[in-house]
């Protein structure tokens, strides 16, 4: 009797597996291409970089095991701390300059009656300008020559020329202004979409209660956008922390290292060292990964909280 029950259980178990496979096989197969691409392009390189960062690398050929020596070289490099501070400055200025304008613009567009669509299109246009074109264009806008666009405007109002990106105190701010101009449209649309979900009766009630524009924005709009605001905040920190293209294209990390970032330093190790510093490039990659993974965990934590609440 017991044997019969066990056999039935086995059959049930087997058929359960068969059923599971039958039911999910096509789903897994549809996922397979993505998994393979992620494995080849992301997971494997990430893990291998971590492993190889413990070896003496001659370009991409593995040498002897050297433990944490590459990490030691990266962290004790004379430019590591200044570059880490630069990277944090990028994040700081991006939050100061770039975080609020998309929200304000989204609220403004939501409020206007005429030219709503035209305004959305105009504000979104910079987002579709290819990155490299945008950087070259802003290099000319910021040109310290008298023929630079901003310097021409300054001369019209009787001021002298300014160094813009050549000025070590302005270079990061300048790059963040450009990044904000480029990314503002996308973020603004996200907030605008969020605003569409706000029940207009809430505003009407607030008006009846005597709330002014600022009070309405704080008490009605802000809670409605809270989820998007927090996610964009963390996303922005994550993205800006990895800034590479702008210093590479617009300033060469200068002047005197003032605009160099951790990602730029990784590029220098990886591609401008004649293959000597590949190991350090991988070690720095792991360090950046570790910093970002903390932010990402925080991001998922916040995301979960938001999903639970809204």
């Amino acid at each position, binding site marked *: 009797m017991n044997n019969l029950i066990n056999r039935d259980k086995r059959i049930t178990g087997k058929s359960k597996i068969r059923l599971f496979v039958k039911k999910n*096989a*096509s789903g897994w*197969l*549809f996922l*397979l*291409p993505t998994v*393979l*691409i992620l494995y*080849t392009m992301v997971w494997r390189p990430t893990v291998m970089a971590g492993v190889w960062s413990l070896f003496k690398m*001659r*370009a*991409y*050929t593995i040498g002897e095991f050297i433990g944490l020596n590459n990490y030691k*070289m990266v962290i*004790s*490099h*004379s*430019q590591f701390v200044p570059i880490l501070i630069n990277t944090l400055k990028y994040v700081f200025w991006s939050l100061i300059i770039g975080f609020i304008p998309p929200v304000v613009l989204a609220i403004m567009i939501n409020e206007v009656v005429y030219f709503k669509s035209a305004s959305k299109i105009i504000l979104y246009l910079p987002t579709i300008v290819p990155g490299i074109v945008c950087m070259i264009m802003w290099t000319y806008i910021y*040109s*310290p*020559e*008298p023929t630079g666009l901003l310097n021409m405007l300054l001369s019209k109002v009787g001021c002298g*020329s300014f*160094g813009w*990106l*050549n*000025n*070590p105190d302005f270079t990061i701010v300048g790059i963040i202004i450009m990044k904000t101009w480029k990314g503002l449209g996308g973020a603004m649309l996200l907030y605008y979409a969020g605003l569409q979900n706000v029940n207009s009766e809430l505003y009407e009630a607030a008006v009846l209660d005597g709330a002014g524009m600022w009070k309405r924005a704080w008490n009605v709009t802000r809670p409605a956008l809270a989820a998007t605001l927090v996610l964009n905040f963390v996303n922005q920190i994550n993205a800006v922390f990895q800034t590479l293209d702008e210093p590479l294209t*617009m*300033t*060469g*990390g*200068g*002047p*005197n*290292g003032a605009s160099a970032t951790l990602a730029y330093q990784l590029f*220098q190790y990886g*591609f*401008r*060292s*004649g*293959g*000597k*510093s*590949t190991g350090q490039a991988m070690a720095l990659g792991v360090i950046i990964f570790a910093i970002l993974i903390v932010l990402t965990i925080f991001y998922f934590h916040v995301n979960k909280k938001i999903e639970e609440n809204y």
Partner: protein
Amino acid sequence: MVIIKEENFMRTKFRRTVSFILAGVMITALSTGCGKQAKDKDESGRTIVSVSNYPSAEGKAKDNFDNAIAKFEKNNPDVVIKPDQWTFDLKSFYAKAAGGQLPTIFNSYFTEVGPSIEAGYISDITDVLKKRGYEGKFNPVLEDIIGRDGKIYAIPSSAYVLGLAYNVELFEKAGLMNEDGTPKQPKDWDEMVEFAIKIKEKTGAAGFQFPSTDNAGGWIFTCLAWSYGADFVKENEDGGYTAVFDSPEAVEALQFLKDLKWKYDVLPAEMLVSNSKTEEYFGTGQVGMYITAGDYPTKLKAYNTDVDTIGLMALPAGPKKHVTLLGGGVKMISANATEDQIDAAIRWHESSMNYKLTDNVKESINNTLSNMVENGILVGVKSMSPWSKETEYLNYYYDMIDEYANSDMNHVKLYNDFVENCPAEVRPEERICAQELYAILDTCIQAVWSDENSDPSEVLAKANNDFQNDYLNNY
């Protein structure tokens, strides 16, 4: 009911088939992309040689390349040429090399020969070159660059020394041209500054330009500092290295660059300048002079620079030395190549460039020069040759430059004379951690240009210390 069941069944079957096909395609695509050692012989036993720099765009250059392949394979029935569109760039080179994906023979630069030897990515070609009669045929100044410990690892395909490019129109306006069409030659850096001041005064354009980013500024600064008597890295008795560019000589050279901006004001306002930005400034007539190599006309093509408005002359001397920096291009052969492939690859190279003056070589030279003329690139600069003066190639090449010249040869005469009977010391670039050195020197240049009160001796002392600790101590 039955119909619905059948529909569901068909749908599931269809979905499953599609997913299987998709997965199959992806797996095939990914597996074909994986590194696999290339074959060295084809089915009929011919040696396969893959060659870089195959033009991607349809046109004359691609037709010439195809014709060269057809002709070579006809004359060398034991070899089959596989063209590869990859052209050398640092971002892909080391990854391709480590993955065994380099073409058999590929173009590269002097600067990459040393690191490629150290990484073991290129073949020792000494024996094949000896067998093919190359002994004594290369320009002797290149021996240290293409070889190590008596062995040869690269074939030089071009060579140049730094000179001083100038804008003919700005020179004319500043009264710096002679009646015969040659420019006045600044004999030293001080005189060059005088020229730059004159250009600025008479034309409003910047007199001089010097790069400061992407390691380009550091590269040229080494040459400038040598002329002040400075050195950069000294080999110790124990085999280690010491940075020595905190010397008064190097400080004097950096002070010179600082003065160009703050004392003489002859530079453009933009101080974050890459090589290509320097070329843009010069190619569009915004600066009077810049330091560059003999191959610069090709780089100005992007700006449609009128060939009659540009010229080249000798590099001015420094207070201690007259010295110029050597650079150029090489052909390297992948470390995976077999003996047969090395031999066949060198034969392929010889079909377009050979110390012996074959018909193919003549045709190749004519094609190159006529292409330059067609594309509006200045022909007239007689750069340093990879070959020794005795070779037939060199004499023919120089004769053809005279024949195809598309501008006043006097505009480049002073550079050509400088190359032919070089009064200056010709030095290859620094060998130890060169790129890192250039990067750190770039920041020194930016430091003295961005702060009028900066002290070059402090800037260099810090850079010297950082370079020692960050790189030389770990070398």
